[in-house]
């Protein structure tokens, strides 16, 4: 009996590795080398084209001890993540709940809400710069209609990050898709049973829908956290020439790193920055994974 069980387990292990083999191969072929290179490079004064001398932990040391902009950029990024991740997650769940219903024209609605997520790249950021223009932009025009005197958005350091969060909320339709796909998988019979028990719509949503989609909520939180820390292009375009202004309020971590790597050609320094970010994000993800069993509910849990 024992021996037989062992062989089954081994067979399963072999299967497991066969299934993840594409990833392993791709990892070693395309990813591992560049990753290790960047780790090694973080201990050098690598300048991309002509120099790569070992400097020990100098990069790390000056980042943590001396570099005020490093701290500014980290703070800006944490601010952005702390607001954008919860807001976009809640927004996406809310919209998906609305879009998971049977109302006339639902396909059109779904397409509409997904539209902003399809639009990407420089054009959208330029568009939003026009929309957020204090005097003539549409945002302040709309706010004016309801009697609100809109702020100076991208010109006021207190409002630059909220501007970006607002823009992110507009394109929340991307993760809406995930929730929608997940909500489609929730069994109708659960709702029917609840209906018979006389549970209200709201209670059904809280006690059936939400628990059943926790795997995707978990996914969304983890990935948008990772993605949020890497915010770059929005700030690069919308702060004018990638300087991160006004008053460094849009100097995000990756923007500062980009400037170090491709403006100052101090790639070694940028590589050190990237590994510090890696540690921060890794720890946060680990905490997420540790907390997951308390609230994430997998229907098909293996016993």
């Amino acid at each position, binding site marked *: 009996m024992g021996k037989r069980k062992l062989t089954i387990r081994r067979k399963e292990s072999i299967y497991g590795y066969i299934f993840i083999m594409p990833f392993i191969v791709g990892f070693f072929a395309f990813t591992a080398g560049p990753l290790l290179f960047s780790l090694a490079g973080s201990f050098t004064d690598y*300048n*991309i*084209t*002509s*120099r790569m001398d070992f400097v020990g932990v100098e990069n790390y040391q*000056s980042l943590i001890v*001396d570099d*005020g*902009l490093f701290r500014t950029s980290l703070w800006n990024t944490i601010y952005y993540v702390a607001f954008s991740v919860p807001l976009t997650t809640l927004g996406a769940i809310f919209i998906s709940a609305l879009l998971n219903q049977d109302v006339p024209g639902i396909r059109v609605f779904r397409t509409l809400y997904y539209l902003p997520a399809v639009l990407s790249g420089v054009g959208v950021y330029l568009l939003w710069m026009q929309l957020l*223009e*204090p*005097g*003539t932009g549409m945002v302040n025009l709309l706010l004016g209609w309801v009697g609100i005197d809109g702020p*100076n958005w991208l*010109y*006021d*350091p207190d409002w630059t990050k909220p501007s970006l969060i607002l823009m992110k909320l507009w394109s929340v339709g991307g993760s809406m898709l995930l929730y929608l796909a997940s909500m489609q998988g929730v069994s109708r019979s659960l709702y029917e049973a609840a209906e018979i028990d006389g549970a209200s719509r709201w209670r059904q949503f809280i006690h059936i829908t939400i628990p059943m989609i926790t795997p995707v909520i978990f996914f969304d939180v983890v990935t948008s956290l990772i993605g949020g820390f890497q915010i770059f292009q929005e700030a690069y375009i919308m702060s004018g020439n990638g*300087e*991160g*202004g*006004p*008053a*460094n309020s849009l*100097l995000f971590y990756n923007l500062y790193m980009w*400037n170090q790597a*491709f*403006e*100052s*050609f*101090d790639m070694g320094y940028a590589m050190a920055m990237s590994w510090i970010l890696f540690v921060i994000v890794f720890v946060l993800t680990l905490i997420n994974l540790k907390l997951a069993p308390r609230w994430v509910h997998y229907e098909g849990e293996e016993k």
Partner: protein
Amino acid sequence: MKNLRIFLLILTSTTLMLSACAGFQTSDSSEGQTNEEGKTVVDFWSFWGSEIRRPIIDKIVADFNASQDEIEVKHTYSPWGDIWTKELAAIAAGNPPDVVINDINATAIRGKENQAMNLSEFIDDDFSDKFYPELWNATLYEGDSYGIPFNTDTRVLFYNKDTFEEVGLDPEDPPETWEELEEYAAKLDVKNGDDYDRLGFYPLWGVGYDVWLLNANGENYFGADNNVDTVNINTETNVEVLNWLKSWRDRIGEDVVNSYQAQIDSQQGNPFFSGDLAMLVQQPTFYTQISEYAEDLNFGVAPLPEYEPGNGHTSWGGGFVAEIPEGSSDPEAAWEFIEYLTGAEAQEYWAVQNFDNVANIEAAEAAAQSDEFSEEGQMVYQIAVESMENTLLTPAPVEAPGFYNYINPHVDEFFLGSMTAEEALAQAQADVEDLIESNQ
């Protein structure tokens, strides 16, 4: 499920057919290339892809290709800004193009970092005389040139002659000094309650605070030849200039400044075209907008006013160079093309077709006389050419790449009111000194 699989099957077969196309044929491009006719191929990358510029550069390339039978230049457009990331990756991998257009202000740094080739072996003694000295000097690292200046720009004062006449100023006598500038501006203002029907002038439209600092100092933040032994950021003059700039803002009012700014940004709605703004600092190419949107405007152009009489009408400019990336497969052929590109003929063609300032002095002066320009156009171009004598560049010293990133945020805070000029400049000075120290 069945549908999905059929769908996949169709997709796969279509793409397999497509895969026969060029995107799937690998070739070894790192070796020196020759085309079917045995000509050396020079890969030339620029960011000039617009409707206006593309035909001009393509014509220059075609002219060059027709002019000799050894070399064939192949021009490739790559997006503005991103082109240099692409170039850098290609240099790192050892298969760069042969000629690239790049920012003049970081040429020395690219030389230091071995991104661009040292061109001194190709250059005759008097070659540099063809170009404005300020431009030429910006390309030097340790005395050697790493890129040949192509085009450039400057900043000049546009003013509305009719409004001058209206308030009793001589339309042929634009302001010479900052003092006159203020005096004239006050005369030209037409106030209407808190608002303005016409504004005389505001210094921070069209240019940044740094141009006024440059104008007042007559030199860059750094010492002679861009050495970083001295850093002149926190100086009395600079404090005074910043406060002077802010006094305009305080006098005119935030709301008026913002609303005019939005109109200027919109281009056609520029209040200068409608006469609601009497004076404005701009690049000479602003003339093309005037002739498009306000044909009948009676305007004049003058050099920037000087800080004090005799201080000099210092202006500010930038520009681009043609460089040979390190690792180019055929630098000799690349150089031949660069020589043509920066030669008088090609430069004059570029200047005239684009209404753009060029680096070649002979070409610039010839363009100012060009029959292709209207009389007004010739006048503007002439002032632009004259202004080049007083135009400084602000190339980054190799020890302080991106130094403005360390100054601008503090100056932002000054203008936002959260710091005094002294505080802002003291911090900027300290930050730039730290930057220099960390790069030494």
